[in-house]
């Protein structure tokens, strides 16, 4: 797996796709719905954007396909260990950004 793919910040789409797979494996349509739900419709992935991202994430070793013996129309994917690390790293980075914003009173403090 290339290092640079995990060191650089993830795009919002990729972050949410990985997030959608954080709890359990899911297939493409399910990922799409999950991302839309998580972002309150802020990110709505189309089929091309979704599978382009899935293809790259597979190549980079961040997700992998689970062989479920189906006909290939609904292949499930899951996070790899690297994908999990990349997701946690990105989550920490975003959390740090939020903390910085809070410290500057750009966001309300913790209740």
């Amino acid at each position: 797996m290339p290092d640079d793919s995990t060191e650089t910040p993830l795009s919002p789409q990729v972050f949410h796709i990985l997030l959608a797979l954080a709890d359990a494996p899911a297939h493409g349509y399910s990922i799409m719905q999950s991302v839309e739900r998580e972002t309150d419709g802020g990110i709505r992935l189309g089929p091309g954007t979704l599978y382009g991202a899935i293809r790259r994430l597979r190549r980079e070793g961040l997700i992998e396909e689970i062989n479920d013996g189906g006909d290939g129309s609904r292949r499930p994917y899951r996070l790899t260990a690297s994908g999990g690390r990349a997701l946690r790293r990105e989550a920490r980075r975003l959390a740090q950004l939020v903390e910085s914003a809070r410290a500057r009173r750009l966001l309300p403090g913790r209740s």
Partner: protein
Amino acid sequence: VSVRGVGPGVLSRAERRVVAWLVRVYPADLRAAHAVEMEDVCARMCARAAERGMAARAALWLRIIGDTVRSAPVEHWHAWRERARARVADAAARGVPSPDFAGAVVAALGVFLLYWMTLAPTTAFWDAGEYITVAHVLGIPHPPGNPLFVMLARVWELVLSAGGWPVAVRINLLSAVCSALAHLFLFLMVERSLRPGDRVMRRAGATCAVLMSATAFTVWHQSNVNEKVYTISLLTTMLVLWLVLRWRDTRNAKLLVAAAYITALSATNHLMGVLAAPAVLLFVYLIDRRMVLSRRTWALTLPLVLVALSAQLFLPLRAAQQPVVNESDPSCESLLSATASIYTNGARGCPALSATLRREQYAKPSILRDPNFPDSPRGAELMIAQFVNYAQYFDWQWARSVAGASALFGDGRPLISLFVLLLVALGARAHWRADRHAALLHGSTLLMLSFALVLYLNFRFGYAIARDAFPDPRMHEVRERDYFFLIGFSLWGTWAGLGIASLWRMVSEHIPGPGMRGSSAARRRIPWGSIPPRFAAAPILAIALVPMVLNWSWASRSDDWTARDWAYNVLMSVEPYGVLVTNGDNDSFPLWYLQHVERVREDVTIVLAPYLATSWYARQIRDASRPCRSGEDPLKDHSTITCQRPLAHPSVHPRLLAAWGEVPASPPEDSVLPYADAELDTMAAVWFVAENDLDLRFGGLDATIREGTMMTPTDSFVAAIVHSSYGRRPIHFMTPSPVVARLGLTQHAVRVGLTWKLREQDDRELVAFSGQEVGTVGAYVDAALTDTLARDVFIVRGRVVDPQKPWVDHANYSIPTQYSLMHYAAARASEARRDAAGAHWHLKRLEFWNGLIEG
């Protein structure tokens, strides 16, 4: 398309087709991996949207299509990048050297910066006005028509229009960019040839080669203005040479096919780009002769070559639309005949197009014949003169400013040229040792584009060669022809640059370095002992800067407005709706530029006398000067011939308008050549010798054609123009005018500014000349009008008024001479009118222009 998992009937047949089409837009590997899933997702989204009604379903489809439009190009970009990476990795695994693109880009940017700094701000003399004009109006330049250049330059001009630069600057930038890109490939070639040497040496060698090539006088002087089409040929040649070198490394046959395609495409710019082909074929044969004989390679190549050559179809297609510049008018009756012409190189098919492709207009004799005496064989004396001419141009390349006024081997310049030859020998030796095949490719290309080209071109005596032995100007070329050898000088420069790098390496190897046995004592004895040998010897590399320094003042065209202002001054010398009969390139092409690009004085009918020997040109003159029909707008399309264009008053200085007095309110009511096609064809075929004195009468003008005068179709056409237009339009001539002399009209020539005008009944305040002066100055001078033109209207600025800047081209000394003659006539007229101050002013200007000629 079968959408599985959501049951039948979710998508209509039309929707299934759309999905299939959308999926096909994506790269193959993405389709292979995920097409079924993408179809399934589309079906599921549709099923969900269908629950919310038709509007939601329609909105969903818009969303899916929008997503495809956005994401498909991104996916193709990723796929391309991955393939490129894979190729690089594969090449690295096989030990194929990767090109030094970073170094090449830096070198090309440096070259571009140099050309940008010295770029012409407008047109220049000779063919620049013609090529800038045809690029702008999508016209057809002189044979062979250069369709690739015209189309490329027009697109380039449109793309750069967002930059806000004037048209001429945009077209000049095309030349600069082509040349800079050519040096990018030159850098890659040299850098590759020096492998497996270390990186510093390779880059130093390639940089020196690029410097020496890019700053060779002719390369530089042709790259900072678009005077010709040869910078495109330079680019295609360098690209083809690099592609075949790259093919040697990668053995990717597609590179050879690409090289063949580019060579064929380059042929539609100019045949110059094809001259490297024999060298390339030899190279390929030596590396892998199977490729030359491979049916598969030829099967791939030939269709692409045919496609590339189809660019020539531009010529008949555009000619049929009558652009304002339509030289030789290569219109064809049918596409079939045009195609036959193109693919038989003019042996069959459309006569007009064939004549253009074969350059029949120039009637070049065989290379075995003497161009001055086509019945005689090409003699040794002429051949020697031709090679001396080439040596003269070689001598210009490296230090043009040294004894610059001397066109022929001035003062110390030949010593510098000999030193460069020594560097060339060193460079060729280093090239041969580093990479024999590449050196052979380079050398054989150089041979083709230098010595073989001299033999092929078979020029008359060079402009400055053997003037004493052969004083008749018709035995000499009308101008210096160094531009034909541009690519060759680039290749000479490349070897000279390699020679400099080789010298650097040799010297640095002889400087004792740290760690060498006995070096400590030796190094202590020399002042730079603590410096590594390469750095100590590095000043040698500065030799590569010598041509840049010593050519700069001669090669730079920055702030050079001379040709543009000359054209402006000539056009303003012509009275409203006048006819101006010109003599050749310099008094015609800059005027075309001004009329058709800057749209200044479009009312003037420019008649290029040498072209009048052809009926196609006579027809164009007739049509461009005919009165407009009702409802016809002459200003609707400036790029095509419509009818007589009106005088635009805002483009004329108010004092000149006042000096003209009454300006016609509307254009003249007839064409300058109101004849039918058949009559024009007849006139174009008539040559005769006057057996007796022939008396002619044009309105109130008497003229006599002297016994024994050879009358050409040009003379007949000019006589016809004078006959039909005298009294209706002012008739002007550029001076000296051989046509005026042959028609016996010199006695009626009135100098008006930079032109002669045929005397009219109501001309005022004419001062008469007599004796031999009449032949050069004119029989009269319109003192008031010439004075107004010279003082208030004419523009003379930029480089030409800087005493530090030389007049670069001695072949167009006729330009300052024309200014001198005008001021001389005006000074004499002022004296005759007892205006001492006026005479003094004109004499000072005369001195200025003479000073330019004398250097």
